């Protein structure tokens, strides 16, 4: 005769053991898979980032390890950033050919629009992509390359092309067209790109400066 307490304890021990075995087995399986897939996953993640940067930066412009060139940038009004952002420096040989900046257009219809802007060393835009936004679907979301090619019109533009007073959407008398009825979003993007160019112009010297012996990775 065992007392109910003893009986319960015995049962607890039994279920504890069984669950232990399952947990051990399950975790082991996970550990094994994780171990095997980790390098592949890291590789894909990096490839993904690179692919994104490649959209704003023609591959012909660089031969360095772009991902390794990542640096941290302090928040700056011209970039619209409130947190440190990243930048990547493209080089051919030792010469700096272009820079890729993260920027924010803070005055989108529904808040921030995150941008990735590639700028050649000559101050020409190599490409712009929207990486995150919350614009109204169907109204403001055509800035997304997946939705339309609108964003492509920034390519090869610079602070002087068009003239600064034409860095506006067509409705405001500028050079960039925008869809009727939805001008807030493109206004924000145009402004952000212009500001980013401005930022680049001001900090150009720092970018062009010969690379330090060892690039620090942010």
């Amino acid at each position, binding site marked *: 005769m065992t007392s109910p307490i003893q009986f319960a304890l015995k049962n607890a021990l039994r279920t504890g053991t069984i669950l232990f075995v399952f947990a051990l087995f399950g975790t082991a399986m996970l550990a094994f898979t994780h171990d095997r897939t980790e390098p592949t996953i890291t590789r894909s993640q990096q490839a993904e980032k690179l692919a994104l940067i490649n959209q704003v930066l023609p591959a012909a412009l660089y031969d360095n390890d772009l991902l390794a060139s990542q640096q941290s940038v302090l928040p700056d009004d011209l970039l619209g950033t409130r947190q440190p952002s990243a930048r990547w420096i493209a080089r051919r040989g030792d010469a700096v050919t272009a820079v890729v900046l993260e920027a924010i257009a803070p005055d989108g219809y529904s808040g921030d629009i995150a941008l990735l802007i590639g700028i050649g060393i000559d101050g020409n835009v190599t490409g712009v992509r929207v990486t995150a936004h919350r614009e109204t679907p*169907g109204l403001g979301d055509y800035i997304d390359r997946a939705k339309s090619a609108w964003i492509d019109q920034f390519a090869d533009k610079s602070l002087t092309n068009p003239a600064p007073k034409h860095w506006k959407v067509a409705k405001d008398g500028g050079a960039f067209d925008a869809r009727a009825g*939805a001008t807030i979003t493109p206004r924000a993007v145009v402004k952000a790109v212009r500001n980013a160019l401005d930022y680049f112009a001001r900090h150009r010297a720092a970018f062009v400066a010969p690379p330090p012996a060892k690039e620090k990775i942010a």
Partner: protein
Amino acid sequence: MPAPFILDRSSVTQVMAWVLAALLPGIAVYVWLFGPGILVTLALATVTALAGEAAMLKARGYPAKPFLLDLSAIVTAWLLALSLPALAPWWLIVTGTLFAIVVAKHLYGGLGQNIFNPAMVGYAVLIVSFPLQMTQWAGPLELTSASLTLEQSATVIFGGDVPKTTLDAVTMATPLDALRTGLLQQLTVDEVMTQPIFGHYGGTGFEWLAAAFLLGGLVLWALRIISWHVPLAFLAGVWLTAGFLHFFDAGRFGAPWFHLFAPSVMLGAFFIATDPVSGATTPRGKLIFGLGAGFLTIVIRTWGGYPDGVAFAILLLNLAVPLIDQYTQPRVYGGARKGKEPQA
């Protein structure tokens, strides 16, 4: 057939007819201030609604006559038409009306069964799916450099060839759009309000339209077709929420009077939120319904993805109606007052 054997003279048809009649002043003002284009929209929506209603009734095995004569489909059509930009293309009107009648009304069980206001469902579907076309508002004649005749309007609506310049000349953003745009350009409310579109209170033309709807709504109230609860609570919700925000930061939030007389609030308060089928039924419930819808309207106008929030606010509150009704059951005759046990 047991008692009672006599009936009051009221009928669904009569109720709906009064609603339509009360919309007439608004429509008249619309035509006078914005041009006759709205008449084409109204007519097209009416025809589509009746056709959709008849088809659905037939498909569902209901006799067409009594249900078509109840005029509810026309009320839906008119409310939707008045919420659409006056120069919206014909397929937009047809899609919205059909969605309202077929999906929002009949797929939910027809007259009396729809949990959402059909007209607002139609509107929401359109604004979500075709936001671009939904911004082609005809501007008030006072401000536009050109105006369209009835035929020209019909040509525009039915996709005929109209010079883009003409169209651009007659369409403009609504005051709400303009406010939103201005604020996003870092302008203060006062700076934005200097634009001609804003008129005295709710926007040039729009404020008179709102006043006309207010008049029609008061007529409905005087006739006891609608109770005062929902409209008053709705207007109070808008006014209080907008007033609260305006009080704390007049630069970033529009004035409460502007919000009251800006497009769609009066129409929403007196004609849409008062839809009995999809609205709350208890007196306290109606107050909550109205206040909630008013509050959400301003919230959506201020922070939402679309310039106006009346439709979404009402639809959201429609969703909450069963809950509201359940928790606001009034005290019955002889029931305990405010939680106290009845006095023995």
